[in-house]
């Protein structure tokens, strides 16, 4: 049953988890502090009470947690596991890169791993270097793993439900600075959409801006500022990074003739480079060189002022877009 409710981003994640646990009797939800404590960000609050032992806490053992997700998925469960911080994924990267990714392919589909890994990433004021990284590009280098990143309550709900419904391993990357954000009216309760696709956040004629994650709001704010200068930016939010909607980007660039990719992740080796490369390889006619706006290839300092000097700010985005349109 579809209904419209007012939820913030964290509430939307919670609603998607509850609905998924309802839809799939084989779904189980686990992770560090997710059950009885309800999650360090409160996102899984109430689910233990509602779903009993299908929602449980685990030791601080990311390798065991992800292995448990893979093994239980092979045996017919539909696990949803939380890795509290993207930065913590690396202690267990083997289970994603060498294990989950290979289950279907190597077995010719005799085995599958329909599991969802929820995590969150990015810098927030005062966060240390080991709690601030944006690492989606590492996952996007691994065929077999689907990756999504959301920034609105509606997508937090929709994309997570699509991820759980997907019969492959999916990593859904959230952002803790969004959880307690403002409530918005969102529609819940429909059937989960197939994975993939993009969101056109702002139509425009002068430049195509492709972005993803929480920095999307900064891009939109920058685009609004530029509108006052007569620069009309089209903003595409790529909520699904694998599969990535290259066709949508190509179609937009065909109209605008300009491309800028913005992500909070490091510029070098970032997925923005891939987006640019695909457009260039397609032979698209560009009115100016494509640009990437990302973090300045640095470690991320805890001090807010220092972090701001490393990560793309609204002014950086505005000047980058301005230069792209002028160029």
């Amino acid at each position, binding site marked *: 049953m579809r209904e419209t409710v007012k939820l913030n981003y964290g509430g939307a994640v919670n609603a998607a988890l509850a609905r998924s646990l309802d839809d799939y009797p084989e779904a189980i939800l686990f992770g560090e502090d997710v059950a009885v404590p309800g999650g360090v960000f409160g996102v899984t609050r109430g689910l233990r009470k509602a779903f009993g032992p299908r929602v449980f806490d685990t030791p601080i053992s990311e390798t*065991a947690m992800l292995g*448990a*997700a893979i093994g239980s998925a092979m045996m017919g469960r539909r696990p949803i596991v939380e890795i509290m911080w993207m930065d913590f994924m690396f202690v267990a990267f083997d289970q994603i890169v060498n294990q989950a990714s290979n289950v279907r392919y190597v*077995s*010719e589909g005799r085995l599958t791993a329909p599991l969802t890994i929820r995590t969150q990433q990015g810098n927030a004021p005062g966060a240390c270097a080991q709690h601030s990284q944006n690492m989606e590009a590492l996952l996007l280098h691994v065929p077999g793993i689907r990756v999504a990143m959301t920034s609105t309550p509606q997508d937090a709900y929709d994309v997570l439900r699509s991820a759980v419904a997907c019969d492959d391993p999916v990593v859904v990357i959230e952002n803790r600075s969004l959880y307690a954000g403002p409530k918005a009216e969102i529609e819940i309760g429909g059937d989960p959409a197939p994975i993939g696709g993009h969101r056109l956040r702002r139509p425009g004629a002068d430049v195509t801006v492709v972005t993803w994650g929480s920095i999307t709001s900064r891009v939109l704010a920058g685009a609004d500022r530029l509108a006052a200068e007569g620069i009309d930016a089209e903003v595409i939010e790529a909520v699904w990074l694998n599969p990535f909607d290259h066709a949508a980007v190509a179609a937009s660039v065909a109209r605008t003739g300009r491309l800028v990719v913005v992500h909070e992740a490091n510029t070098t080796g970032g997925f923005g480079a891939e987006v640019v490369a695909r457009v260039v390889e397609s032979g698209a006619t560009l009115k100016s060189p494509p640009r990437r706006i990302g973090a300045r290839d640095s470690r991320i300092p805890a001090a807010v002022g220092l972090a701001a000097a490393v990560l793309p700010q609204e002014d950086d985005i505005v000047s980058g877009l301005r230069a792209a349109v002028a160029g």
Partner: protein
Amino acid sequence: MTTDDHLADLHAMWRIRVLEEKILELRLAGDVVGSVHLSNGQEAVAVGVCGQLRKQDAVFATYRGHGWAMARGVPAFPILAEVLARTAGVNGGRGGSAHFSAPEYGFYGENSIVGAGAPIATGAALASTFDKSGRVVVTVFGDGAMNQGAVPEAMNFAAAMNLPVIFVCENNKYSELTPINDMVRNPDLSARATALGIPATRVDGNDAAEVAAATALAIQTARHGLGPTFIEAHTRRIVGHYIGDAQQYRPEGELEADLAAEPIVRLSHQLIASGVAADTVDAARRRAVTEIEEAARRALAASAADPATALEHLYA
């Protein structure tokens, strides 16, 4: 155990031994390419454990897994076809010698990352607690894997969650090319399981009957909802870590001693000493040779994996 039971074990071990020797032959002839890890000398562990399992139970093994697959009932032909990169292989050539699976036989795969199968097996056991299938899961790994974080993480996870999983450590004395005892302070690896609250036992891994008895108890424990067991099975690999391993790390005389104590020689002597006719004992070997030769002939004649299918099965 009856004489027939022992003869059945002997036959099961010969099937693995002859399969491994055939794979060695094919590798040296160039029909098989790439890294191959044989299990010669360790057959009694696979045979002893798998003989106690039911169809629904699951085994997660390592890259030294041909014997475990066979002990689970995977026929020789699709194993050989897999190692030979044929379409008819258990995974159509995608797994190869070191990474194939055959879930239809309860063989959930080899794993080429040391220790990585243990957490996955733990997850399979976690599923048992929800689906009420009574499925018991076995994860086997070597002594070297005991020093890999994934194994103790999985063991503690299984202990904390009381999961029906049996951790089988094939202690063959060498962690790849390095003696395990040089890499630990306490050579009793089972003590780690005990420290985690997991019942642990050390058995003679060259004696299939002893392995089977320990496994039966572990299965009973798991099926009664009493959680994991750890079995440290002492055995010896009488070949290199991989085909081509010069084994210069072995002290003089060690291999000779290991060859005298390996499970097939030992059980054969035992049977003959107990009055079984030498020809009856040798029939176990002959039957295995006939079977594997035929399977190898068919596998060599089978068609190579089709490159046009290389990108299939990446996603749902």
